């Protein structure tokens, strides 16, 4: 290991090259990852602000902030922004871009220019989505169901064109990752020596490549329907609106696994690292990612139990939906078993990982409930569904994303954040989240339909409780924005390996130099060989110098 004086002279990817142009034209995956991170965090706060406004409106059944039409536009925007502009690119394009080549010991992704193009395509698509707000905000819900989406006067075309363009950005990232994982692994890294995050990203990328084109053609058809009146989804012209739903969910169901699979990858990394224990069941976790990707393509019809598809189709889709529970269960059991008798240290990433386990379990179980045909007919289009997917997407993916942000933050920016504030915030978010969404399970079971502007008085106590929860949640994220910003400017300097992890992104400098590693890396230990190699993380070193603690490695 080279000494600290020599390595300190090497500029990090943040320092060299300099200038705004060097960022806008960069092909460095780390910079592109940071640019993605900035963009998605912006939209996360926009989408989150919309959510807080919506919940405030729902505090009482009568009008508080806005009329019913504006409300329809707000929930559509909240959904569309959160899904297409935040959650789908969140882990793969932002964190994945940064971390994947580092984990593989590669200098970059396979197609760096395509990677940059994907960011610009994302921004371009986002402009169309944002433009739709000005041109007449869409009020169809994020699913753009026909026939309403072909008849409403709002700017469906701008929004769907934006989503169509965003799809290409997602495809570019997925394609890039598959090739990178196949072709750019360091010498010695066989498939089963890859970190589980890489397996998660690989399964995600497969879905991105296979499912997104179908969404693209669906949206093209929807635009054609609006512009040329082709009639394919219009029953009055011999078309079929249910065909639209089939097309839409053929993408959008697998897409929910685009959202969760990379999150599961992060959880695998974080739990192994902070339990200081070799991950239990490496291969089952790896294969179950592919298993989820495989099953994800065969269950889309469970969104359409009440849409008029045939009963036999509904029964088959219901049956197949239960299969999703198997690989998901395998993962959860393996994570918990990894923690069992591990030496657990509850730093912020681990706190979020444990929150993930708790919330994802609830989200997953209620998903199985909704997949049960008879129960779904009762719960379809109620707040129960809303609560379920927020538990999976926010309680699952967003918690995993936050775990990842806190885990890799020192590597990305070379600084530590306030551990105390981070833990307090995690608690606030946990409390706020459960207040907001657990009450919605009860509301839904009592029959409160989703997307309604007003409601019966009997629902007011729970709606009010949920709204207060949303405010708590909002406060949590504001605190997070504050302490992360503070860390960015004057946080304590981080060493190369704060948490004592064994994956290869921690083997290089913090923050990494432009080409990732100072010399070509070769795999010398597996990603979870905590039983063979002892590394003390420099986070645990209280002395102010950032000397490396990797000398203990044998």
């Amino acid at each position, binding site marked *: 290991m080279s000494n600290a004086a020599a390595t300190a002279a090497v500029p990090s990817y943040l320092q060299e090259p300099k200038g705004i142009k060097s960022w806008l034209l960069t092909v460095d995956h780390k910079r592109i990852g940071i640019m993605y991170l900035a963009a998605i965090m912006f939209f996360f706060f926009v989408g989150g602000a919309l959510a807080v406004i919506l919940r405030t409106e729902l505090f009482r059944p009568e009008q508080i902030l806005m009329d019913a039409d504006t409300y329809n536009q707000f929930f559509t925007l909240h959904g569309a922004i959160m899904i297409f502009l935040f959650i789908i690119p969140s882990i793969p394009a932002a964190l994945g871009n940064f971390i994947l080549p580092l984990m593989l010991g590669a200098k970059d992704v396979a197609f760096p220019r395509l990677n940059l193009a994907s960011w610009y395509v994302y921004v371009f698509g986002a402009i169309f989505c944002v433009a739709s707000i000005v041109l007449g905000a869409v009020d169809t819900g994020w699913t753009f169901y026909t026939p309403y989406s072909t008849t409403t006067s709002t700017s469906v075309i701008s929004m769907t064109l934006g989503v169509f363009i965003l799809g290409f950005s997602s495809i570019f990232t997925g394609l890039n990752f598959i090739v990178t994982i196949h072709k750019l692994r360091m010498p010695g890294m066989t498939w089963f020596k890859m970190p589980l995050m890489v397996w998660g990203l690989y399964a995600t990328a497969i879905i991105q490549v296979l*499912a997104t084109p179908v969404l693209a053609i669906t949206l093209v058809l929807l635009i054609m329907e609006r512009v040329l*009146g082709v009639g394919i989804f219009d029953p009055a012209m011999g078309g079929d609106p249910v065909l639209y739903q089939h097309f839409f969910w053929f993408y959008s169901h697998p897409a929910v696994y685009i959202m969760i699979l990379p999150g599961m990858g992060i959880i695998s990394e974080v739990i192994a690292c902070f339990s200081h224990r070799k991950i239990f069941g490496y291969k089952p976790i790896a294969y179950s990612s592919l298993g989820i990707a495989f099953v994800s393509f065969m269950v889309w019809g469970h969104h359409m139990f009440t849409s008029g598809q045939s009963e036999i189709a509904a029964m088959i889709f219901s049956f197949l939906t239960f299969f999703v529970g198997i690989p998901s269960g395998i993962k959860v059991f393996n994570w918990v078993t990894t923690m069992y008798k591990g030496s657990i240290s509850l730093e912020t990433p681990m706190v979020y990982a444990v929150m993930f386990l708790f919330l994802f379990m609830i989200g997953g179980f209620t998903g199985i409930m909704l997949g049960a045909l008879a129960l779904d007919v009762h719960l379809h289009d109620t707040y129960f569904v809303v609560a379920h997917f927020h538990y999976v997407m926010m309680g699952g993916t967003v918690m995993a994303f936050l775990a990842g942000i806190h885990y890799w933050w020192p590597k990305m920016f070379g600084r530590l954040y306030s551990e105390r504030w981070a833990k307090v915030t995690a608690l606030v978010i946990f409390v706020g989240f459960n207040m907001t969404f657990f009450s919605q399970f009860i509301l839904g079971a009592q029959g409160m339909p989703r997307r309604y502007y007003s409601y019966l008085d009997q629902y007011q106590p729970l709606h009010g409780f949920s709204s207060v929860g949303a405010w708590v949640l909002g406060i949590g994220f504001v605190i997070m924005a504050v302490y992360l910003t503070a860390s960015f400017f004057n946080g304590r300097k981080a060493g190369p390996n704060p948490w004592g992890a064994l994956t290869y992104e921690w083997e290089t400098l913090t923050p990494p130099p432009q080409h990732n590693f100072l010399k070509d890396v070769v795999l010398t230990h597996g990603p979870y060989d905590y039983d063979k190699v002892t590394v003390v993380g420099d986070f645990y070193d209280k002395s102010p110098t950032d000397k490396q603690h990797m000398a203990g490695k044998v």
Partner: protein
Amino acid sequence: MATSHTETHHPNWLQHHFSSPFQQGESSKLGMWLFLLTEVLFFGGLFCAYAVFNAWYPETFINAHKSLSWPLGATNTIVLIASSVTMALAIRSMQLGSKKGTLILLWSTMALAAVFLVIKYFEYSHKFHLGQLPGEYYTYEGIAGTNPHIFFSVYFMMTGLHGIHVIAGMIVIGWMIYRTSQDHFSSDYYTPIEMTGLYWHLVDLVWIFLFPMFYLIG
């Protein structure tokens, strides 16, 4: 910092993050095949729509397909297959290091693609003239069966999307002609031409499915 490669193994077309030409070439190929996979799924949605409406309105489809001219469709099929041959030969030519041969064959591919589009133009304008247009613009009255406009909706969207791919292919081939003329390629390095070939074969292949589906049913 010192790289592990010597200059002789690091030609100027090898990108910095690859360690060997082989690794770069293999990555390009895998990436291209994945892209073609997305194209197949992109068209897949329309093939699915075709299957649904063909099953719902079989008589309409049989009656409506008679208004398509199969000799023109067959000519176009032959034209596109010929263009695939010239494309493949262009790659072969660059493998053998012949710049002149490659340019001639790429221009031939371009010319055949143009012939395809010209024939398609005549077919389209004839249908526009008759009012055999998609969806609510359909005004023709000579086809028996329910919802004949759906047939033309599907027809125009599938062949139209294919036509856009032909145009995109011509642009890429034009770019390859430019790069070949600028001596960017050699018998050691011709990956972009090869990738263009893969794309062009897919465009050809889609048409080979479209031709019987629309021109030869019933």
